């Protein structure tokens, strides 16, 4: 993965594949430029034995190939900056994944177009799940909630072209000052 925004898109896709109804992604940048990304979903969750080997690149649920690289690559990049990843999961309840990155570390990948990632998640999953995005840094706060948009739209799917521009603009204005500086 060339940047953190690709990791976020990739990891969030795991929640989608786990049939989550609600996916929340929160970003916190502290005063020392440590970034914490927290993914929470209410998807199918993982059994303890699968969870134990999920950071192994030769673990995957896919049948088209024998490797699953999303989580191992995230782990490697987080650890290169002195950060960690932590996964808590329970079958039938959901999964929480926390990744920390030292943004000042020389080996930290660039942030990339995080706003494009958030927009892509919504547009490619226009019916379900619901997404809640939050971002915080000293002096800034941003949030985006597809449930609010969906309610205002009276149930229309969230990939209508008219809506995509509105969401892109809304996400960019709020999240760029925190995530793309």
């Amino acid at each position, binding site marked *: *993965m*060339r940047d953190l*925004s*690709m990791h976020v*898109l*990739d990891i969030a*896709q795991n929640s989608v*594949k786990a049939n989550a109804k609600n996916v929340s992604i929160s970003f916190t940048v502290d005063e020392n430029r440590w970034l914490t990304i927290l993914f929470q979903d209410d998807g199918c969750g993982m059994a303890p034995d699968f969870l134990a080997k999920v950071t192994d690149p030769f673990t995957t649920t*896919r049948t*088209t*190939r024998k490797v*699953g*690289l*999303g989580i191992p*690559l995230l782990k490697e990049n987080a650890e290169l900056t002195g950060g960690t990843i932590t996964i808590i999961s329970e079958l039938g309840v959901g999964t929480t994944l926390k990744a920390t990155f030292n943004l000042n570390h020389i080996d930290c990948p660039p942030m990339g*177009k995080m706003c*494009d*990632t958030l*927009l*892509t998640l919504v*547009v*490619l*999953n226009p019916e379900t799940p619901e997404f809640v995005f939050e971002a915080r840094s000293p002096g800034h706060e941003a*949030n*985006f*909630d597809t449930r*609010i*948009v969906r309610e*205002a*739209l*009276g149930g*229309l799917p969230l*990939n*209508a*072209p*008219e*809506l*995509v*521009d*509105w969401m892109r*603009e*809304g996400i960019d*204005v*709020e999240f760029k000052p925190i995530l793309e500086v």
Partner: protein
Amino acid sequence: MKSIADLEAIRQKTLERVAYRKEADNDIRVVVGMATCGIAAGARPVMLAFLDEIKKRNLNNVTVSQTGCIGMCRLEPMIDVMVPGQEKVTYVNLNADMVPRIVTEHIVNGNPVIDYTIGAAENK
């Protein structure tokens, strides 16, 4: 969040547009590979480029959706274009700059861009 008041106008516009278009069964489908391999190879800008082109040309009958890994990771980013009544066309090794040509020549004018297809890539 951005002003929710805008959404009412967007809702009206969308409802009008949906009312004008034909059956959804006749939609042209663009399916983007969005597994780890696709994302790492650059599927996101390709997908967003499709959205931009579709919006620019006001194409009402095209939907963009995603799929996982189909096992040919080395050819990512890949997309399938499915025009009802025609054979599926698979484009490979894409980048955002190649998208306008696919939209113009294939989706609008009905002529697949042979240079970008999986057949052309595998015969190189």
